[in-house]
């Protein structure tokens, strides 16, 4: 801490005051007990339970109680899915289903990201007639964690923050697909996507988030992320490149996560 930018006549006083100010004894036992109490209290206040989450849970509960229709199971599921899309804006206060869905997924991912300790992804690359399959695995160390805030994914590593990719690559290399599941937050923040009907991937019900990037007038790249709503995690990410109305490349990346905490 450099005070040499204040008037020189008080430098000596500043040094002495700093010395006196730092000369304080802290009871480590008391500090540790307070930490335990705070973390206990934190667990009571997390979003899924406790006072922090009460307002959201009670609003959603009241609306969902109105659903109760007698119909064949498949039809009931279809009706429930469409009604859910319809009521989401009313429940969440958002203007469109996209905004409501984006909010749900982003909140889930914000909660889930720090619990991810590793992931495995399998990439199927198709170029014309040839196909290549690559399977890779990533593992975070004990002092690393992933976080998502304001549409951006961060890696917290060794006490420092780093942004995980500043933008989605149009033509990802294999190494880029390692972070493919982190491209979603920034897209969700823009609300610029199409919702696709739910499907099942690896026993999980997932929703499709599809968006298109047009690098030129003759080319289009369509990304589709299949997302588990409860966790906000991408289970499958596909990329289809169309040039002059012909599919020239198709990539499918499947993600499996290891979580703890």
């Amino acid at each position, binding site marked *: 801490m450099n005070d040499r930018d204040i008037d020189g006549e008080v430098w000596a006083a500043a040094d002495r005051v700093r010395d006196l100010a730092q000369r304080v004894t*802290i009871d480590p036992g008391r500090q540790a007990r307070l930490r335990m109490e*705070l973390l206990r209290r934190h667990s009571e206040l997390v979003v899924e339970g406790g006072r922090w989450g009460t307002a959201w849970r009670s609003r959603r509960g009241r609306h969902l109680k109105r659903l109760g229709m007698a119909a064949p199971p498949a039809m009931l599921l279809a009706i429930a899915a469409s009604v859910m899309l319809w009521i989401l804006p009313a429940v969440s206060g958002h203007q469109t289903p996209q905004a409501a869905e984006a909010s749900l997924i982003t909140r889930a991912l914000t909660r889930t990201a720090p619990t991810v300790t590793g992931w495995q992804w399998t990439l199927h690359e198709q170029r014309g007639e*040839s196909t290549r399959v690559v399977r*890779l695995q990533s593992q975070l160390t004990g002092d690393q964690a992933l*976080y998502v805030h304001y549409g951006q994914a961060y890696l917290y590593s060794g006490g420092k923050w780093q942004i995980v990719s500043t933008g989605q690559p149009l033509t990802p290399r294999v190494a880029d697909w390692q972070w493919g599941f982190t491209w979603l937050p920034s897209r969700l923040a823009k609300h610029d996507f199409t919702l696709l009907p739910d499907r099942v991937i690896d026993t999980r019900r997932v929703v499709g988030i599809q968006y298109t990037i047009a690098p030129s007038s003759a080319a289009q790249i369509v990304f589709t992320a299949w997302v588990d709503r409860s966790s906000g995690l991408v289970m499958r990410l596909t990329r289809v490149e169309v040039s002059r109305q012909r599919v020239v490349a198709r990539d499918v990346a499947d993600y499996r996560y290891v979580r703890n905490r």
Partner: protein
Amino acid sequence: MSAFDVLAGGNTEEERMEEALSAGILASCDEAVDDGDALLAEAAKTDPHAFGELYERYYARVYRYVYHRVGNQADAEDISAVVFMKALEALPTFRSRQNGFAPWVFRIARNAVVDYYRRRRKQSPLDDIEHHSSDSDPIGHVLTNERRAELHLLVQHLSSDQRDVVLMRYAADLSFAEIASAMGKNEPAIRMLLHRGLRKLKAVVVDE
């Protein structure tokens, strides 16, 4: 550490090695982030480990500030606990895009000390130990050498703003920008307050 397993045909050994080498965890992390504590506070909204880390980073700084405001260990410990409890309960309202975490938590600390003195005045009106500064009352005449080492007594003779600036700067290690944000003033005003406070203290703390 990462492991790899490449399947199917078409890959050369060189391609496999290149993919393995480029598949490191930090390969695609682009930029460092400056305001790490604000991001940590965002993370702490859902992650208790992040809140625990914030606590470890700020407890000593908050405690030192509070201690020199109230002058005794027991009250300093109690008030510091209140500060972190209030910070935890108010965490959902913290906005990293609007605030740094340090100014935010020291606003809470400052208010907690004010509340402490307000309660003391209600309980013991005659026991008010907050003195007002007086330029005509040289501090050194009433303090022994021993008491010159007790900073909380010395800063009692500063104005409340001067006292807060001095303690936030030297006990809490805040930057001028952080102090300005915590106190709702601009940086030039903070520097002026610090200079005036140090001038008043100079006569007592510096051996001539």
